[in-house]
């Protein structure tokens, strides 16, 4: 166990024991001290859950392999093929986006599995019996998953970024804000995408369904935009291009697939807003539905 046990206040006598003392029936009082549980307990429980299944190791392992492997491969290819002139003015960090786009599928899968697999196995009933505060469980899952996803993404992205900068000598040296956006910012974005998947998993309560929805969300706008040839659909097509997730990812490297649409840190705020709405929906459904 890697998380410390929270301290146990012995003084707090739960009021149900006082109630039971007055009843005419025999009662049983456990010798184990009673602790008033809080979010910290739920977080340590969720940490135990997420680290003790193989699917976590598999999805994160594949994620790291994709991001780092493809990132390094592309950096090596580009440095071997491209001339220094053609790279002039390019942000060297931007070559990490391809691996990250593929790797996001793994984060999406892990996010969905964190919630939906409990419904698939029936474990959710055990969890909700142990913690009747359903919002607390979802919050703990979100926090633990977000922390794990962000840490793993940030480490992988940083590694690729360092390799890109050192290998691609012809490209410009990224500024401080470019470093921040290209590593910290995009890691937050990927982790938020995973968190959205977790919430969709909680809403849909079915692993395959939720994963399909999330992958469609990532890929469908771009694919749909490709087939919108009619002039009357031009504005829709442009919006789909601008706000598709691959396009938003590339905004973090300051060159978008198009010239309109979100810029700067906009994609992060969009993701944050969507995730907040999804969290509210997931909590309200969790409270009202039968487990």
């Amino acid at each position, binding site marked *: 166990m890697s998380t410390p046990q929270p301290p146990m206040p012995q003084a707090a006598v739960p009021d149900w024991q006082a109630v039971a003392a007055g009843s005419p029936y025999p009662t049983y009082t456990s010798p184990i001290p009673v602790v008033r549980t809080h979010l910290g307990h739920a977080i340590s429980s969720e940490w135990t859950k997420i680290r003790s299944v193989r699917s976590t190791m598999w999805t994160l392992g594949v994620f790291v392999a994709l991001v780092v492997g493809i990132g390094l491969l592309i950096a090596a290819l580009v440095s071997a093929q491209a001339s220094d002139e053609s790279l002039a003015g390019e942000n060297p960090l931007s070559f990490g986006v391809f691996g990250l786009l593929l790797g996001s599928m793994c984060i999406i899968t892990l996010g969905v599995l964190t919630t939906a697999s409990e419904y698939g196995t029936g474990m959710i009933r055990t969890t909700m019996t*142990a913690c009747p505060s359903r919002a607390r469980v979802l919050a703990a899952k979100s926090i633990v998953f977000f922390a794990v996803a962000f840490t793993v993404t940030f480490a992988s992205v940083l590694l690729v970024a360092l390799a890109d900068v050192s290998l691609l000598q012809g490209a410009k040296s990224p500024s401080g804000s470019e470093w921040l956006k290209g590593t910290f910012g995009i890691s937050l974005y990927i982790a938020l995408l995973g968190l959205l998947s977790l919430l969709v998993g909680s809403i849909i309560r079915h692993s395959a369904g939720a994963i399909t929805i999330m992958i469609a969300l990532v890929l469908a706008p771009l694919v749909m935009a490709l087939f919108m040839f009619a002039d009357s659909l031009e504005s829709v097509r442009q919006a789909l291009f601008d706000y598709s997730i691959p396009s938003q990812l590339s905004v973090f490297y300051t060159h978008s697939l198009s010239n309109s649409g979100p810029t700067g840190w906009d994609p992060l705020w969009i993701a944050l807003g969507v995730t907040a709405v999804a969290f509210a929906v997931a909590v309200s459904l969790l409270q009202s539905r039968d487990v």
Partner: protein
Amino acid sequence: MIEAVGLTKRYGDKTAVYNLSFQVRPGAVTGFLGPNGSGKSTTMRMILGLDNPTSGQVTIAGHPYAKLPNAPRQVGALLDAKAVHGGRSARNHLLSLAQLSGIPARRVDEVLGVVGLQDVAKKRSKGFSLGMGQRLGIAAALLGDPQVLLFDEPVNGLDPEGILWVRNLMKALAAEGRTVFVSSHLMSEMALTADHLIVIGRGQLLSDMSIGDFISANSADFARVRTPDTEPQLREKLTSALTEAGGHVLPEQDGALRVTGLALPRISDIAHDSDVRLWELSPHQASLEEAYMRMTQGAVDFRSTADQKEGLTQPLPPGAQPPMPVPGQGQPGWYAPPSPQQGGRPFAMPHPYGAPGQPPAGPYGAPGAAQPNPYAQPAPQAPQAPQGAPAPQAPAPAAPAAAPPAQSAPAAPAPSDLTKPEDVR
């Protein structure tokens, strides 16, 4: 103390639990009995706040589960043995629950020892047998050392040793002053474990009494009396003589009579006085299993039928005998009627509709026919089954005694109109 008041749960137009009110007291094992699909698990889920009741409420120590302070330390539950992530080891599964409930981690190893899983604690639960899964579920229920324990079908899949262990565990837990609520569809198991019985069928309460009361109410002694098959009028004669003497006489399927309320010597004297020869006069006791079957026979949702293979068999060559059906196929739709001296409480639910489970009542009386039932009298004009060819299995059309009480006596304990909406499905 678990207290349910008017608990009702509907899923769409299907009513799973209807107007259920009961109390589960500490210091005793309370059995929760009912056929498959009678609403036991739904009730358990509502107690645990997992499902919201459509109406009514259920409280533990006066609080709804969601508002219970330190719920996991006060209530432990085994709902479904397979409700664990198969990829997680038994110890990690329990550890995550312990952390969620603020229980020290060393308690996990304790309960693993209590249920005998310490050797497979590090194994993934995917490979567990059903019995090991049940043990893991029981370990999760015991984790918080709670005051209230709920077990849904805890002995499913356990070997005989495991069943004995669970039985003793329940009793020991109750003896410590805890509330133990155990659901089962096995009367025989509950008869050995429970102190108190709550029986439901089709989501409605059928019985709520201590096991002692249940036994005395349902397994009363009776005498089986058989008159010569060749002389049906002797049976008529004896029936009226016994009824006059204050006994209650009910016919059995094979032509024997089930007599209650009279001692064996008295029956013999009456038979002697009325000049009736007896082929059999024997003392019997109805089993609890039988009493339970009788109580729930109207409330069984899933009833098997004989495997006819109709239309699939080759036409028989002329002169060939059709194969004899194997006895025991299909579920009997008939159980012996209740002993009538507790006439105030007929357990069999009235069946105003022609459900397939309708017991083909004999010409004399029906289950639940109490003292004022005119059909219980030996009607001389009643068509007498030819004795040479007894037709006990032939379903008596329209079961005259079963239907009228439901219509003419609206004050029957199980209100017939309440069961109607359910049967629309």
